[in-house]
């Protein structure tokens, strides 16, 4: 992976290896969040940064077949919701562009980071994505 590429947004994930999503936990109500909120919206207290689990299960997904020029994603690409193991949190993410047709509800996935599309500044950037691992799915 080219090391001069930057994440599409700061403070969302660690590039690694191993890559980790940066979430948050409220010290009062113990709710977990992704991404990190400004304060806990339930308690209005500062939250502490945590590293989220890297494995999970696909809850739902979509495959966009038409071009999305907004961030120049591959065509087609899959994205959707993943229930992270242990963290009691459902996060949104891209799926491995090489394995679009393997994505299914119940598919087990693991976190990766790589160059996908462009960022807010129009430059190529790093994004997190989930790739299928054995088990679950169809």
């Amino acid at each position, binding site marked *: 992976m080219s090391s001069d590429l930057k994440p599409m947004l700061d403070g969302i994930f660690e590039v690694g290896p191993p890559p980790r999503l940066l979430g948050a936990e409220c010290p009062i109500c113990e709710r977990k969040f992704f991404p990190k909120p400004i304060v806990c919206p339930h308690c209005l207290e500062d939250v502490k940064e945590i590293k989220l689990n890297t494995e999970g299960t696909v809850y739902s997904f979509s495959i966009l077949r038409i071009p999305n020029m907004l961030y120049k994603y591959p065509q087609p690409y899959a*994205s959707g919701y993943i229930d992270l193991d242990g963290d009691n949190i*459902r996060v949104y993410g891209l799926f491995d562009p090489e394995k679009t047709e393997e994505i299914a509800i119940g598919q087990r996935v693991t976190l990766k980071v790589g160059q996908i599309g462009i960022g807010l500044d129009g430059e190529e950037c790093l994004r997190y994505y989930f790739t299928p691992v054995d088990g679950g799915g169809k």
Partner: protein
Amino acid sequence: MRAVDIIGVGMFPFGVHKTTPLVEMGVRAAVEAIKDAGVKPSQINIGFFANMQAGNLTKEFTTGQAVMWGAGVNKVPVFNIENACTSGASATTLAMMSIASGQYDLALVVGAEKLNVPFVPLLNPSMRDINVLEGNVVINGFAQRAVRHMYEYGTTKEQLAMVDVKNRRNALLNPKAKFFNKPVTLEEVLGSTMMSDPLTKLSCCPNSDGAAALVLCAAELSSRYTTRPIHLKASVLVSGVFDEWPDMQTFEEDQRAGRTAYETAGLGPEDVSAAECHDAFTICEVMHTENLGFCPIGEGGPFVESGATSLGGKIPVNVSGGLLGKGHPLGATAAAQIVEGVIQLRGEAGDRQVEGAKVFLTECMGAELRGDAKTCTVNILTV
């Protein structure tokens, strides 16, 4: 709180109006509504203008005052409302509150939108939204709901396509629906370009231009202007939950807004004669019929297949053509749903008239945050 009636409606046809400016569409709808109500523009006490994209697409802002004055309304308070697809219903809720409070007697609501401009990007609520940065666009959010709904309840892509076939057929009976001029077949819907599985091009509402307007009046005064007021029994607006556990297989916002609206009106889903809902994508209507209580959760697919939501069925849905049949001029859409309710309850809907309609429900939903609808509206009208 005072009861509120709708005494006038107007609509600039939904279609492609490349050479008609946004303000002109709004003015024409407003003039029709004011004349229909039998009031003078100078009698209007307050105005609400709904629009979503003028700042982006035609580089206009604070458009409401120009629209209102075009229809002869000046000096009075005018508010410009943006609440995505529900903007027109959100404006109606504010108009109702302003009259119910006793502060104003006559309110004008206008929703207008111009989308047929040279370049319209894929809609997304914010470039910095993490879900958008990770590939979510509006159609994906609904495709994810469709995928989950099919997985959980066995809904078929044919059932989804039937929503479009029905609404396109209804639109042909509506003289204000100008976007299409022919029906579609199930095969055409299923065989059109795949956009975001399982949603094909014809499973998505097109971008149309148009405007819709309403004149609301304190019920105790409406007999001065009309002999056939339509009662606005409930006008409810809610926001999403936005927690860390988004649910793709139900519309919690529909359930919550619907419950409040039914309780306020003293009615239930079994009392509803006909409804308009936010069928931006075929899956939406299937889910709305479930979450508004017209059929059990998970049975929206068989419900449309049974013909229950067709004209002449148990509860006709989107008899105006809906968003799929008329197109979706965002800020005008939810106001036009209420216009359809008034026309149906007056018995003036011609070939698409729902026989004996007494209670009409309109539902709209707009934009997404963390997998929930940002905004959801339910209005209930009665004769």
